[in-house]
C-alpha cells in the first residue's frame, strides 16, 4: 500500500514551515529571522518524522538546527547589535523579486504537478543486509542500518568527499574570517624577490 501520512499533522507542519520561512525572509529584526529559521528547520524535521525518516529528522535537528543555525546566530551577534534593525530599509528590489519568485513558483509547481511520479507500494524500500540473512527487503521504513550500508557501498566516494569538503571550507574560512593580523615580520631571506 502507498504510504499515507496524517493530513492534520501535515497541514500543521506545512503551515509552520511556510509561516516561519516567511518570517525568515520578512522579519524586521535579524534575530527574529534567525529564530524563525530554527523554527522552519524544526518543522521540516517534523515533516521528516511524519514521513517516518527518523534518522534524517534527527540529523536535521542536530546538525541543522543545532549547529548551522547556531553558527548563523553567532554570526548575527558578531556583526550586529542584536535586536536593532540597523538597515535603512530591509529589502531591495522587493517587487521585482516577488514577481520573479511567483513566476518561479508557477514553473516549479507546474512542472511537478503535471508530472506523473513513479510511486510504488511501500514494500520495496532499499534492502538491508545482515550477516546471517544477507540482503533482505524487510522493513517498511528506511532504517539507519540500511542507510549506513548504502553509504558504504555505492556512496563511499561522496561520503569521503564530504569530509574533504568540510575540511577545506574550514581551512579557508579560518583564513578569511580571522581578524586582520598585524603583518608578520618577514623571516630573513623571504624578501629577495620583493619588488
Amino acid at each position, binding site marked *: 500500500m502507498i504510504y499515507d501520512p496524517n493530513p492534520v499533522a501535515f497541514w500543521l507542519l506545512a503551515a509552520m514551515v511556510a509561516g516561519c520561512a516567511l518570517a525568515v525572509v520578512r522579519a524586521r529584526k535579524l534575530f527574529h529571522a534567525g529564530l524563525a529559521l530554527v523554527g522552519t528547520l524544526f518543522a521540516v524535521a517534523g515533516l521528516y518524522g511524519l514521513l517516518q525518516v527518523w534518522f534524517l529528522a534527527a540529523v536535521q535537528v542536530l546538525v541543522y538546527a543545532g549547529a548551522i543555525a547556531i553558527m548563523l546566530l553567532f554570526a548575527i551577534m558578531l556583526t550586529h547589535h542584536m535586536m536593532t534593525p540597523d538597515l535603512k530599509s530591509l529589502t531591495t528590489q522587493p517587487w*521585482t523579486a516577488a514577481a*520573479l519568485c511567483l513566476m*518561479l513558483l508557477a*514553473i516549479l509547481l*507546474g512542472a511537478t*504537478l*503535471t508530472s506523473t511520479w513513479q510511486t510504488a507500494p511501500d514494500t520495496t524500500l532499499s534492502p538491508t543486509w545482515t550477516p546471517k540473512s544477507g540482503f533482505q527487503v524487510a522493513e517498511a521504513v528506511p532504517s539507519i542500518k540500511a542507510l549506513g550500508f548504502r553509504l558504504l557501498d555505492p556512496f563511499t566516494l561522496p561520503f569521503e568527499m564530504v569530509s574533504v569538503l568540510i575540511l577545506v571550507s574550514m581551512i579557508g574560512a579560518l583564513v578569511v574570517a580571522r581578524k586582520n593580523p598585524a603583518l608578520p615580520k618577514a623571516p630573513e631571506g623571504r624578501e629577495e624577490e620583493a619588488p
Partner: protein
Amino acid sequence: MHEQVAAAALEGAAANVWLVPLLPFLAFLIISFLTRPWGRVSAAVSILALTGSLGVSAQVFWQRFTQDAPPMQVAVPWITLAPDHPLGTIELGLLVDNLSAMMLLMVCFVGLCIQIYSTAYIQTEIAHFPTQGSASMSRFFGWMSLFTFSMLGLVLSHNLLEIYIFWELVGLCSYLLIGFWYFKHSAAEAGKKAFVVTRFGDLGFLMGILMLGVALKGFDFLGLSQKFTQGIPEGLTAGFVALAAVLIFCGAIGKSAQFPLHVWLPDAMEGPTPVSALIHAATMVAAGVYLVARLFPVFHPAGHAGEAALLVAWIGGITAFLAATIAVVQNDIKRVLAYSTISQLGFMMAGLGVGAYTAGSFHLITHAFFKSLLFLGSGAVIVACHSNDLWRMGGLRRHMPFTWFAFLMGCLALAGVPPLAGFWSKDEILGYVYAAPGGMALFLVLTFSAFLTAFYVTRMYFLAFEGPYRGAEKAPADLAGPVPPLSLPAPFPTSQALDVAPEWTEEMATSSQEDLPAACRGAGMEHVPHGLHAPKEVSPWMWGPLLVLALFAVFLGFAGVPTGVGLGLPNFFEGFIHLSGEGHPHEFHWTPMLLSVVVALAGIALGAGLFAGNPERGERRLRSGLRLVWPFLQQKWYLDHLWARALAGTMYAGALTMAWIEANLVDRAVFGLAGSVRSWGDWLRSEHTGKVQHYALMLLLALVLLAVGIGMVEPGFFTSRQFVINLLEGGR
C-alpha cells in the same frame, strides 16, 4: 630520378633523416633558452648539432649513392581541415631522393665550414660593438641554427605547402641575420628591403602553389611529378600550367634574386660576412633554383614547349648578364661577390630553363662551395684590412698566404678556368644552351657574361691581393664614390620615406665603417703612417675552413666531367642526378667548351693587363673605355631607382586614393559600425550594476525565461486536468 615515381618508405640510413633538420632546431632551442649568456658554449652546441646532421646526411647520401633506390618519402597528416576532401589534409613529410640527399650534404658541409669560421670571425665583429658581448654570439649561432634547420627542412620538404612554410622561415632567418646588427640603420633597412622585395615573389609563389595544388588535387612533389610525366595532366590546359609555373617561378625570382627582384641581395651584404656566405651565396638563394629543379616536370611537361621554361631561361640569362656588368664597376669586395652570386644564379636558372637539369644542379653545388669560399675569404680580408673597399686593399698575397691561396682558387673556379669546379659546371650549362634549339642567342649572352665574370674576378683579385697595400690611403677621389643618384620628381616621396628601396649612397657602402666606435674605426688607418699596421693573416679557425673549401673548389668539378672530354672519368654527378626524360640527349660539344675556355682566359688576360701593374691607371682606362655606360652600370642600370620610383609612384597614387576612400567611405562605415557596436557594449555593460542581488535576480530570471522558452509553461498549463488532479489529490 623519376623512372620509378612510386615512392618507397624511408629505409636504412634514410630512416634517420629526420634527425638532420631536428638537430639544428634543438641547437636553436638550447641556445635560445639555456646557453644564451655563454657565446662560446652556444657556438659549440650549434657546431656539434650540425656535425651530427652532417654525419647523418653523409650516411643518407652514401646510401643513395651506392643503391639505385627510388625516391623515398614518409608523410603524416599535419592539419586536417576537411577529412574527406583531397586537399583537406595538409601533410608534413620528408622526401629523400638523390637531389635532396645531395643538397642535404652540401648544406650541412658548407654550413659546418662557415660555422667553424664564424666562431673566430663573429668575435671580430662583436669587438666593434663592445656593449653586445657574449649574448650576441649566442644570438648569431642561435639564428644560424634556426636557419640551417629551415633550409634543411626546405630541402626535405615533401609537398608544396610544406616547402612554402620553410621558404618563409628561411626568409625570416635571412631578415633576422641581415639585420643582425639591428641598431645599425643600414642593416635594419637592408633586412627590411630583403623581406619586402622577396615578399613580392612569394605572393606569386603562393598563388601558383594554390593553382597547381587545387587543380591537381594534391601538393606533394612526387605526385605532381608523376602527373606530368605523361605531359599535361588531363583537364588542364598548357596555358594554365604555364601560368602556374610562372607564378611559382616568381617565388624563385624573389628568393634567388633574379631580375627584376634581385635588388635586395647586394644590400643584404649588411649582414655579417658568414651570413652572406651561407645564406646569400651558398644555400638560401639557391632555394629558388632547387625549387625549379624540384618542379622540373611542371616547367617541362613532356611533349610540350614549356613556355614557362623559356621564361626561366631568359630571366636567368638576363640576370646573369646584368649582374655581371654591374659587378665590373663595384668597389666593395662583398658587393662584387654579391653581384657575381646573382649572375651565377642566373646561369643556373638559364640552365634549368633550357632543360639542363643535371648541369643546373651541378652548378648549384659547385657554386655553393666556391662562392662560400670567396665570401669567407672576403671576410678574412675585411677583418685584416678593416674595410670593404677594394681600394684600401692590395698586396694581401704577401700578408695573408693561406687566405690568398684559398681565395685565388675560388677566383679561378668562379672565372671558369679549367679544371676547377666552376669550369665544369658552367661549361656544362653552356653546352646545353648551345645545343638547345633556338638557344644561340642565350648562349651568346651567357658566354659574354662568362667573359665578364672572368674579368671582374680578375679585377677584384688584383685590387685586393696584388700590388702594394693601399690601406692607409684614401681611394683616389675620382675612383671612389658613385654618380649622384637620380633625383626623383617632387611629388613623389623618396624611396627612403617609403622604406622600399634605400638608395645606394657611399654611406651605405662604408657604413659598417662609419658605425664603428671611433677607437676601432680603421684602427688608425687614416692617421698612422703606412706600414705600422700591415694586415695580418687571420686565425687558423678562419683560414682552416677556407682551405677545406678550396679543396672542393678545385676538385669537385671532377665529379661531373662530361664523358666526352675523354679524361677517362665517369660522370658521377650525372649518374647520380639525372632525369629519365631529360629534354635533350646529352651530347658533348667541343665548341662551347673551347669557347668558354677562351673567354675565361680572355677575361683574365684583359683584367690582368689592366690591373696587374698600376690598378689606378687601369681603372681610369677602364672607365674611359666604358665612359658611355659607366654611370649606367654604377647606378645598377637604375633598377633600384626604377623600383623606387615605380613603387613610390604607384604607392603614392594608391595612397592618395586609399586615403580618400578611407576618409570618406571606410571611416564612416567602420566608425559608424564600431560606434554602434560599442554602444551596444556600453548598454550591456550597464547591466553589471555591481549589486549582487541584482545579479542573482538576473540569474534566476534567465532560468525562468529559458524554462518558459522551452515550453515548461504553456497556455492551459495550470488548468490542465492532470494539474488539477495532482493539486487536489496529491499525486496518489
